[in-house]
């Protein structure tokens, strides 16, 4: 690790820590820094302690976990597909994971427990990534990749809406926005606990791909001559993305664009090395998600704005700018 990358890690870790502290301080009830601190180190039954431990702590933890998962998955997909537009949301992995989760949530949960949700999300994400490879192929042009992703994504969103409309709860129809736009409001420690193991497994798989992705950026033949097995690389990334994104979406709903913005912003800082991009994108994703979730709470006076709305408001213009940039370069 060069000292420059070391400094970058230091800066990002500092940003995540600072934003996490801000996240603990942000909410409808004004709590002093002192009461937040004492709630964390010496919890009691006071309202401020309940708020910090049961409401703000899971929210902050999940923002870090989900953000890291999305940032890392985006960086890995972009490296593997050698395409800066690849992202869990755009390729349909998030919306497919949301479909899988919603299906289990509204129809299968009665006989099973909360812990099944990540498995359902992973199955959905896995199907989407597999389908994308089948549809767009591995040497896909950016355009065919996006078209395939749009098709998968819209199809999965439509299926989610259909499934929820058929759910027997009268309230379910109002909840479509959670699955399609995501939220971290009022999640619990139980949500963090069921999602974290799968996410961690996904992280391990994806982070193990660093050297392979760096070699791949030199071309497939060079990568092969350096002893990289493309089939194994692809399998690890598909599985890793399915684990990380599936588990994230199952507790937060589909939150788009994080995996697009973060690797793109950090790429110049790691010398355009897709391998070194992985770790920093994790931290960057966590920071962006924390920031977006703080913005959501600051902006909302009544019912909270969906987290996916904020990331899309930042991400969609970003995506268009990227497209224009690519067209200029190729044209």
């Amino acid at each position, binding site marked *: 690790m060069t000292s420059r990358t070391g400094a970058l890690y230091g800066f990002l870790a500092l940003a995540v820590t600072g934003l996490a502290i801000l996240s603990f301080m942000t909410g409808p009830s004004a709590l002093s820094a002192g009461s937040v601190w004492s709630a964390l180190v010496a919890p009691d039954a006071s309202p401020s302690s*309940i708020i910090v431990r049961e409401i703000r702590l899971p929210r902050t933890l999940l923002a870090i976990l989900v953000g890291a998962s999305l940032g890392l998955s985006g960086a890995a997909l972009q490296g593997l597909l050698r395409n800066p537009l690849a992202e869990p949301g755009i390729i349909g992995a998030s919306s497919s994971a949301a479909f899988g989760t919603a299906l289990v949530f*509204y129809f299968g949960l009665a006989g099973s427990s909360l812990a099944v949700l990540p498995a359902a999300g992973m199955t959905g994400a896995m199907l989407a990534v597999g389908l994308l490879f089948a549809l767009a192929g591995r040497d896909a042009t950016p355009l065919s990749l996006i078209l395939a992703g749009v098709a998968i994504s819209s199809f999965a969103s439509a299926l989610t809406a259909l499934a929820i409309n058929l759910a027997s709860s009268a*309230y379910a129809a109002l909840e479509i926005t959670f699955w399609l736009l995501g939220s971290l409001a009022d999640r619990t420690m139980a949500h963090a606990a069921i999602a974290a193991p799968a996410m961690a497994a996904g992280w391990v798989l994806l982070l193990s791909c660093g050297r392979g992705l760096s070699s791949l950026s030199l071309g497939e033949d060079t990568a092969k001559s350096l002893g990289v097995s493309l089939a194994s690389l692809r399998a690890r990334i598909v599985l890793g993305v399915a684990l990380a994104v599936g588990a994230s979406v199952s507790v937060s709903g589909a939150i788009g664009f994080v995996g697009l913005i973060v690797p793109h912003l950090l790429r110049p800082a790691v010398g355009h090395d897709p391998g070194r991009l992985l770790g920093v994108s994790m931290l960057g994703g966590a920071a962006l998600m924390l920031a977006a979730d703080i913005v959501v709470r600051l902006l909302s006076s009544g019912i909270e704005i969906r987290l996916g709305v904020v990331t899309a408001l930042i991400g969609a213009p970003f995506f268009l700018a990227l497209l224009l940039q690519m067209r200029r370069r190729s044209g």
Partner: protein
Amino acid sequence: MRRGAAVLLSVLAASCGGQALAAAAPSRVVSIHLCADQLVLALAERGQIASVSWLATDVRRSHMAKAAAGLRLNNGSAEEIVALRPDLVLAGFRSGRATVGALRKLGYRVVDLEFADNFDVVRRQTRKVAGLLGRAARGEALIAEMDSRLARAAADVPALRPVAAIYQPMGFTSGRGSLEHALMTAAGFENLAAQRGMGALGHLPLESLVMAKPAVLINWMGNDPAPSLARSFYDHPALSAGPWRTLALPNMYWACGAWYSALAVEQLAGMRRRLTAERPK
């Protein structure tokens, strides 16, 4: 012509020595709204009812679900209502305006009911529908029963009312002007949302609720067994960590304001009595 036939039929029914329905009483009543269903099912002769809405048999939302069993159900579309040849259509505050407009244009008699968000409206509405159905006496009996229940619930309200908060999914609550407020107040509670100046639909984030520490938390989702995010929300540890008592009222009681709302008031008043018995002040 259609109406003429209907009148003729009801005159025939009356002259055949049937029950003393007023000659003008409708004999093919169609209700297309859950709240109208309740009144029709409680007030009308069974033979007067041509159809009630599809929600009428849902035990989670309909108080009169048993009485609705076996009746023809409708989805509230103009087409199926016309096929029922009604002489009176009762619509609610949320019935599709397009449907109601189309039915009126075709010459059907459509009566709109407002949402009853307090007991004055309940009394007015019950009298109105009872009158339309030619069952005024039955209407008065329902109102008298309700009023005696309400009087008993309000008999021992202490000067310092305990504070209750009603909690709906996603942090919504109900303040002044809501049915929920009317029920809580009738049972002798102070409504937290009203205290804070909120109107019929207010927003009370989970954090603010925890800080406010009401004596009772009323679970708005009641006994809905179907999984939903809204229901899973009530499992939030912050809700069970507080010092309050919780009371789950079946959500049928929030769907419509009606004579049976007094039953919800009785349950709430029972909770209030248990509270005061525990902590004498």
